[in-house]
């Protein structure tokens, strides 16, 4: 390797190090709250119109996948605008770093959805809860780089505690039904 190539590789390394230790300001609280509002509306709609939206596993999954896509789009659009504004020259590096950090959770969520729908369609009702646990894991793994321990830990704990308490309740209700 030539000296110049070696120097370029060193610069890429320093840049990656700089990006990984810089707090990401792209996650907007309003967009995150908006995703929660989408989920709440979907849950209310499924409760009001169970025949149309939740009795059939395919429709149930379609509703929640729509919520996930709309939430991701909202967070992405708002996030890209904020990143450009708040990170300046670091914007593209920060976006790539954050996407790389979150991609495994997205793949895991998609995998869980496909496997559950394919092999246990009667249990797809647990999907939102499982996704919520994955979101909590994103929160915990990004404590240092996204939101800071003070706000991240309570939010992550809530995201784990809520499905962990509601999934057994749902299970009992299914058995009664």
């Amino acid at each position: 390797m030539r000296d110049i190539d070696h120097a370029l590789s060193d610069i890429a390394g320093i840049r990656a190090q700089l990006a990984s230790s810089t707090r990401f300001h792209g996650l907007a609280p309003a967009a995150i709250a908006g995703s929660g509002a989408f989920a709440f509306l979907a849950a209310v709609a499924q409760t009001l119109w169970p025949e149309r939206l939740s009795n059939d596993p395919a429709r149930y999954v379609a509703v929640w996948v729509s919520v996930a896509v709309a939430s991701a789009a909202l967070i992405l659009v708002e996030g890209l605008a904020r990143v450009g504004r708040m990170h300046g020259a670091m914007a593209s590096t920060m976006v790539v770093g954050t996407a790389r950090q979150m991609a495994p959770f997205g793949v895991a969520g998609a995998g869980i959805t496909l496997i559950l729908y394919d092999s246990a369609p009667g249990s797809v009702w647990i999907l939102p809860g499982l996704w919520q646990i994955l979101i909590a894991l994103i929160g915990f793994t990004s404590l240092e780089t996204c939101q800071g321990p003070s706000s991240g830990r309570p939010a992550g704990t809530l995201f784990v505690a809520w499905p962990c308490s509601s999934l057994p309740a749902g299970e009992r209700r299914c058995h009664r039904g």
Partner: protein
Amino acid sequence: MPGSDRKAPYAYAGLDRVFHEKARLGIATSLAGHAYGLGFSDLKALCGLTDGNLSRHLQVLEEAGFVALDKGYVGKRPHTLCRLTDLGREQFMAYLAELERVLRQAARATAGRSVDDLKTSPQAG
């Protein structure tokens, strides 16, 4: 500025003089990987600087707004925590981008020459 780049492609205005000094480049690179900063003595060991030299260079970086120095105590001992500010991180990233541009231009300029030619060629400027 794109316009000035076209007029003087080798001006390298983005090579900020605050970072473009051996000791300060070492300080910025050491701090780049630590979100919460480094203690003065750790930084001194990493950069191989004396107390006086490190203080002088940190002062330059602090005056430019690129480094923040948080002075406090660990137990009864005084402790100075040095960290890159958001502005410092942004400017250092821009500096690295410019440095990368310099190297790429140098690589293109010397692409057709052998290593021996480069070793014996006189330095410009």
